[in-house]
Every structure is written in C-alpha cells, then in structure tokens.
C-alpha cells in the first residue's frame, strides 16, 4: 500500500501570526515539503492544480519535473490535473515528458475542478463538466496508446495524423486515477477503463465515500477488470498530530476555525466526528485511518493533506516527521494484516511495464502461427 501527502497549494494567512506567504515563498516551502516527504519514507507526493488566487500552482507538471530531479524514490502525482479545462494533447505531451524525466516515477489524478470562472477562462462551460471529462480523457488515452491518432470530438479541434511526443516511457502509458467527491459518472468512467478511483474523502462524511467506492468497485467487476475487491482505490485524509492529543487540538483549532474550506462553520469537534479529519495523537491518527478499511475495503493509496490553512513550514515538517516515523510504519504493518494476497498494489511504472512485457512475449507467438 502507498502512503503519501497531497497539497492543494493554498496561500492562506497564518491566523496565529497574521503573516501571509508570497507565491515565491509558498512554492519554495512546497518543494521542501515534497522532498521531506521522501526523506521520512513516504511513497507519494501529489500536487494540486489551480488557476485562481489564493492558489498558486497553475502547473503541477513543472513542480513535479523539478522534484523528479531532486528526489530518488517518491512517486510524483497530481491532486488533481484538470481534465476539463486543459487540452488533452498538452496533458499527454507534458506528462509523458515528466514520465521520462522521472524514470516512470509519476502518475496522474484527473479531476474536473469546481471553480466556476476557470471554465470560461479556458473557453469551456462548467455545465459540460462531465462530458468534457469523458471525452478529453478518451482522447488522452489514445494519444499515449496509439502512435498516430485521427480524432474528432465535441470539445477540441480535430486531429489528423497526430503523434504525441515523447512516446510514453517503455511504451507504457502513465497510470491514471480519477478523482471525484460526488459524481458517480466519474466512478463509472474509472471502472470502465479499470483505472484507479481516488475519493477526495476529506470534505464529506464517510458514509458518502463508502457508497461511491462501493459503486466503483461493483462497476470495476462489471467491466471485467477483476473482482470488486481488486479495484484500485485511493483515499484522501487530513490529520494534525502532537504527541499529546490536547496539544494537537489546541494548536490546530485556530487554523481549523479560519480555514478557507470549513472555517467559521462547524466546530472542530463536529467536523472531526463527521469527516475523516483527525486531530490528536499519532495513535488516534492510526486508529481512525485503519478504520477507513472498514468501509472501503482493502485499498491501495492513502494521501494526507498536511500543508494548508496557513500552517507554517516548520509545523508541516514536524507533522511529516510524526507521519513518517510513528504513523505510517504502523499503518503499513496493520493494513498488510489479513489483506488477501490477490488484492493488487497500486500500479507503478515497473508493474505496468512487466504486464506489457508479458503481453508482448505472448504476441509474437500468435503472430508466427498466423503468418
């Protein structure tokens, strides 16, 4: 199972000091955070994409390319890449480039984005969010899998004889996760292709995530990719830890109370009981996270949101230390317990290449027989 962090790249005033990072300082902080995630033994760093302040990361592929050069092991992913407003041709080209630069140490999580004006800024209509995601992804897949593509659709100028370069590393397309909070159509899409399904998880009650993941698993089996319990599931999570539970609550409360997403709304206590947010000791984080399996089954990827709401860099790095040293080793051990041997891990470049090589080794035989 993979563990990691994801960052939305918000620029938020620290409510305890009144200081607001600049785009420049926040970018540097995130680069430090991502590299520290590798140092503490995490498997995945995922970067968000936004095109409106107070978010700065318009180009996660640029950030991840830099990180690819600075890191050795960590998988560089996105949270999320906007499939609706980006040109799928540019996604195919840029992320194939990242795939080469990182030696296959990358994948993508596709999302639609829910900021109304971003759609018209890129010439699209938010009411077409689902059709955009379906059509553009169908093209993206072909661009990585077919050397020469002829294509015509509703949302992009047609292509005749187009080849996306560079061709995917080792002829293997990057693995794709489809992210969604509430759209069953996206779970259906992920299941149709046998791709991963990433449930945001953090903003909504567990019962909702349970239903969405259950639906995806059932449809994954329906489309013949394996049993429902073999589908590829990722979950978001959100934690704040201190050795002593009361210290965590005291320190995090002003950040919670003023956070852009849920601040000035429900109490920290209500939100903690109704969503996956955990504020407390490492043991409490372990207990709550292990509980996720009770309602989504054995899953493949757990990402935590750690650097948001104005938390200073020093605090975030301390959080990563606790996560890497005290939480994740226990989670690895406990999640592995009683996990059926035929429930797969999250696909990686190496595993996808092995599958492709096996398939290729079998193909020439058939060709020989036929010719």
């Amino acid at each position, binding site marked *: 199972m993979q563990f990691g962090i994801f960052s939305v790249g918000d620029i938020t005033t620290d409510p305890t000091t009144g200081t607001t990072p600049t785009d420049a300082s926040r970018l540097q902080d995130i680069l430090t955070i991502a590299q520290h995630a590798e140092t503490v033994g995490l498997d995945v760093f995922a970067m968000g994409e936004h095109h409106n302040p107070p978010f700065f990361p318009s180009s996660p592929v640029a950030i991840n390319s830099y990180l690819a050069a600075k890191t050795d092991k960590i998988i560089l992913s996105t949270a999320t890449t906007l499939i609706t407003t980006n040109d799928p041709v540019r996604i195919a080209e840029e992320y194939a480039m990242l795939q080469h630069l990182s030696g296959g140490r990358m994948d993508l999580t596709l999302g639609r984005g829910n900021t109304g004006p971003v759609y018209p800024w890129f010439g699209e209509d938010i009411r077409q969010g*689902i059709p955009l995601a379906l059509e553009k992804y169908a093209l993206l897949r072909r661009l990585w899998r077919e050397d020469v593509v002829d294509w015509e*659709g509703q949302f992009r100028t047609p292509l005749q004889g187009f080849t996306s370069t560079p061709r995917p590393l080792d002829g293997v397309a990057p693995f794709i996760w489809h992210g969604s909070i509430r759209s069953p159509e996206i779970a259906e899409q992920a299941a149709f292709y046998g791709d991963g399904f990433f449930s945001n998880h953090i*903003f*909504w*009650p567990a019962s909702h995530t349970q*239903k969405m993941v259950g639906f995806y698993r059932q449809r994954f089996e329906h489309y013949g990719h394996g049993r429902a319990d073999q589908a590829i599931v990722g979950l978001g999570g959100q934690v704040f830890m201190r050795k002593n539970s009361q210290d965590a609550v005291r320190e995090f409360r002003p950040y919670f109370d003023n956070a852009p997403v849920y601040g000035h*709304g*429900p109490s920290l206590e209500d939100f903690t009981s109704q*969503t996956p947010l955990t504020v407390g000791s490492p043991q409490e984080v372990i207990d709550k996270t292990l509980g996720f399996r009770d309602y989504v089954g054995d899953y493949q990827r757990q990402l935590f949101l750690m650097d948001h709401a104005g938390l200073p860099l020093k605090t975030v790095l301390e959080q990563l230390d606790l996560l890497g040293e005290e939480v994740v080793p226990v989670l690895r051990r406990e999640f592995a317990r009683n996990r059926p041997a035929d429930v797969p891990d999250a696909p990686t470049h190496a595993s996808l290449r092995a599958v492709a090589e096996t398939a290729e080794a079998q193909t020439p035989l058939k060709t020989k027989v036929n010719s």
Partner: protein
Amino acid sequence: MTARKLAVVSAGLSQPSSTRMLADRLVDATVARLTEQGVEVEVTTVELRDVASDIMNNMLTGFASPKLEAVIDAVTGADGLIAVTPIFTTSYSGLFKSFFDVLDNRSLTDMPVLIGATAGTARHSLALDYALRPMFTYLHAVVVPTSVFAASEDWGSGADQVKTLPDRIDRAAGELVPLVAASDRSSQVRDPFGFDASLSPIGGFQPS
C-alpha cells in the same frame, strides 16, 4: 396502500410562533380531508430553528450533518409539503431560503406543495406569489393555486370577515389533498448513483 407522508417546514423563530400555528392549521385541515377519504397519513413537522446552525454549516462545508440529513430525507421523500415562513424584509426569512438552498435542486421535483406565510400586516401578502411560489416553481415542485397568508389581525377581531382564515386554509388544503393522495413519491426508490442512461464512459460525440 401504505400511508402517505406529509412533511411540514416551519421557519418561525419565536416560541410559540404564529408561523407554526398557521402550519399546524394547514396540517390539521389537510389530514382531516385525507382521513375522510380513507387515506392514511404520517406527518413530519420540522422547525427549521432546530437545525439552523446545521443549515449554515451545510452551506459552508457542502454536506449535511446527520441531524440535518434526517430532516432533508424526511422532506424530500414526502408525498406532500406544507412550507410556511414569516415574511422578513419583503420576502421569506433567510433561514427558510437557506434550507431550500442546501437541498439538491432536483430533490423536490413533482412535490405537491402548499405555501403559507405570516407577517404583521396583510400588506406583505403578495410575498407568497413573488417570492415563495417562483422558488418552488424553479425547483419543479407543484404549488397549489391557493396560498395562505395570515397577518397578526387574522388571529383576532381584525380578520377578514368574508374570506376568513379558516376558509382560506380549508380551500388550500382541498387543493393539496388530491395531489398528496395520488402521489407515490414516498415509495419511489431513488438511486443515488442514477445517471442519464445515455451516458457513455468514452464521451458522447458521434461524428456526422
């Protein structure tokens, strides 16, 4: 035949409230007529004040607390809705509107609705027709033609002596009852993952 479900939403703030009083009168008249016709009915009455902070939290976070979720399920899964609000500053109260703002905008489709309002004077009575009625029309609910407005004076000697408040209540209930009796909304099974049957996972474009 199973019992019909009647939901009542009252946005009154005080205890006791004249808004709740009007809602109760509308319920009594509706239930009496349904019973007369041999139609069993279960009534769920919601005081929005009891879930006021849950409604605002839902507005901010995008999801309902378990308590509000139960209220939303009771209202949206009913066979009929009686919705009553005080008129504040020429329109429905903010609390009333906020509750309907956090509902899925498809969840009241085909819902038979009887609207009522209260205020200090009858000069606010048109708010029913320029504010409440269009809101429910937008939600594709079926609003009965008679809406009931009760000014303070309606509860005493200053009331209209010709078309009295009880007359108006009775007329409105009479319009709601056949729609509730004929409704099967409460026994419909809603698929939370239902989507358009024409959805194709690879996109819908067909080259001409």
